[in-house]
């Protein structure tokens, strides 16, 4: 579903990704861990077609990036630590707007369905800028699921959430994964990643320095591995 070979990304003279090889099979939930500045967000932005690779090969569902980016976007749902929602529109208006952008035939019906599913149906006519951070993140997930994408990309989705909102997001992520979607999530939260993911990759100094399938993940083992890989 996702195939990345020798991916290089530089900003000016500064290399951020230095030849990343990465794969995710259909239905797989990959957590991408790494310290600040390791290149997690850069890699996710390239997968999301928001940034151009400097060198290397990136394919999503068989489509090559950046040449076939428009076809890839229809298959993608992206959630970042920013909600990507308009504060001066209501929750319902935001979803109806994105439904039009994705060309959904029954945009209004689908927006209602999604609002119901993320538990915001009662607040549908409230402005997004009046929402708490947790509610904005729930609506952001609803926005990303609106067109029923095959691939979901989550960029540090827990940033700024309290315990209750984080627990709610855990539940949402599990349901997203159960629906058979391929999920890539960047995070600093090792225990949570170990709990949710079917595979953990550690990105350090611009390369995938370690990869661990779920069967081999233990909370202490993961922390040891992470320390060893990122401090070497």
């Amino acid at each position, binding site marked *: 579903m996702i195939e990345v070979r020798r991916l290089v990304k530089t900003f000016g003279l500064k290399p951020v990704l230095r030849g990343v090889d990465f794969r995710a099979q259909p239905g797989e939930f990959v957590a991408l861990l790494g310290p600040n500045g390791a290149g997690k967000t850069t890699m996710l932005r390239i997968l999301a077609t928001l940034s151009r690779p400097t060198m290397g090969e990136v394919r999503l569902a068989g489509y090559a990036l950046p040449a076939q980016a428009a076809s890839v976007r229809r298959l993608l749902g992206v959630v970042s630590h920013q909600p990507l929602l308009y504060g*001066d529109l209501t929750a319902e208006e935001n979803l109806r707007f994105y439904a039009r952008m994705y060309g959904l035939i029954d945009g209004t019906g689908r927006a209602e369905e999604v609002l119901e599913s993320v538990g915001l149906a009662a607040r549908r006519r409230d402005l997004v800028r009046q929402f708490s951070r947790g509610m904005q993140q729930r609506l952001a997930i609803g926005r990303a699921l609106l067109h029923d994408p095959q691939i979901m990309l989550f960029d540090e989705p827990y940033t700024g959430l309290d315990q209750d909102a984080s627990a709610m997001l855990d539940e949402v992520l599990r349901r997203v994964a159960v629906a058979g979607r391929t999920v890539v999530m960047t995070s600093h939260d090792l225990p949570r990643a170990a709990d949710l993911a079917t595979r953990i990759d550690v990105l350090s100094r611009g390369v995938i320095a370690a990869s661990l399938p779920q069967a081999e993940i233990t909370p202490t083992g993961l922390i040891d591995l992470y320390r060893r890989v990122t401090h070497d």
Partner: protein
Amino acid sequence: MTSGAAPAAVVTRRGSGYLRAVGAVLWKDLAAELRSRELLSAMLVFALLVILVFNFALELDLATRQTVTSGVLWVTFAFAGTLGLNRSMAVERDRGCLDGLLLAPVDRSALYFGKALGNLAFMLIIEAIILPVYSILYNVNLFLPGLLGVVLLGSVGYAAVGTLLSSMAVQARTRDVLLPILLFPVVLPVLIPAVKATNAVLLGLEAAELWPWLNLLIAYDVIFTAVAFMLFDFVVEE
């Protein structure tokens, strides 16, 4: 909460939906502005202040009024327009909305045209308020079909190039300062014929003296729109 469950059917329309995307972006900008009125009120207050200051500063005999009107009007529209352009793109920067737009499976030039039409609509609303106020303050009749045509053509060119450059400037930390520095040298080929054509209409000059400026204005509108159409994708991508 049952989020994440695949819906029974999410049916999408066939085709690229270019016009639908343009319309959606335009609707979104108008609906958000209708609610907040942040952009229009800033533009309007600034524009009213400028024409009021000029009203007190200039000698208002008939000959002066005739000659300064085109300059005062376009200075007002250009600077008020910059405020609008800055705010219009700042809204996209807040909460990462620009990324939300760029993730949509539509040709990115559709996003440009949606934003440009929104910016043009805001400029035209301000101009529709400023022209009668100016007429009253300066006792000059501005409700001439030719003048309205020139204002429309000038605004189209300004919004075309302004939307492209504000998309570029919004990615910089110094965007508020950067936009006027980038915009005014580039938009001069629109502003000069607009001022000259406005002057020609107000002074009642012959068509032969007006048409070269109008032709220039139309040519620059077409060139700037075409260039923005081709470059927008590169401007917004990292």
